[in-house]
């Protein structure tokens, strides 16, 4: 169960690169950096200047950069079920996210996924960019993983 857009809401967020695309507090919009800590309702993001900023999850929209683990399209090909709201590469993140029927601990994020334009051959600064409505990430960091098992019997 690698870190993919589907498992993101149940996986470890600390250490990921993130950019705050939208937030209720306008001062938080545009913060970018690395997540260094997480609480139930917030992230702590360390920016490139070395400052730490605490961003609330509720109501904000975060763009995560997932590292590419397997060369090739293994990660990007499973994401086609989100194809309805696939973004055009390079568009900014003003899509109204569909959050209909979001249970707070839903295992599949209502994420729109776009693979970076240069991703097929794994160049340096790319990765898979996932924009997630951070309201779906409201959960205790330690208890997020266990919620729904991977059992096919569910």
């Amino acid at each position, binding site marked *: *169960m*690698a*870190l993919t857009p589907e*498992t993101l809401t*149940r*996986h*470890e967020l*600390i*250490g990921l690169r993130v950019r705050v695309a939208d937030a209720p507090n306008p001062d938080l919009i545009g913060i970018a950096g690395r997540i*260094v*800590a997480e609480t139930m309702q917030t992230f702590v993001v360390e920016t490139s200047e070395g400052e730490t900023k605490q961003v609330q999850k509720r109501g904000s929209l975060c763009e995560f950069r997932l590292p590419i683990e397997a060369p090739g399209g293994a990660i990007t090909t499973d994401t086609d079920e989100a194809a309805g709201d696939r973004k055009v590469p390079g568009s900014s993140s003003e899509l109204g996210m569909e959050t209909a029927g979001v249970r707070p601990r839903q295992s599949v994020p209502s994420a729109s996924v776009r693979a970076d334009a240069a991703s097929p051959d794994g160049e340096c600064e790319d990765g898979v960019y996932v924009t997630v409505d951070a309201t779906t990430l409201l959960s205790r*960091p*330690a*208890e997020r*993983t*266990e919620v729904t098992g*991977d059992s096919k019997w569910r």
Partner: protein
Amino acid sequence: MTIAEERIDRLAELAREAAIDGEYDRSREYVRLARRVAERNRCGLPRRFKRFTCDDCDVFLRPGRNARIRLQDGHVVVRCDCGATKRYPYRA
């Protein structure tokens, strides 16, 4: 490999990096979170994780930096800077 085990591995790596940067409190947070994930998911912790974290203050141990390692008769003694001692056996 479940998500929980992967999270534990990632957190161990993050804790190590934080300890290298001298951010010992951040390293403690990561170690505590990894332990909590392990107990919630009942998956245990890797042996390397157990041996390189302090049971008392939860910091990630770096031999020579914040931990002293001595070999004694049949066991290894690891003493953290906080003073806690951990021992584990070895076979010569």
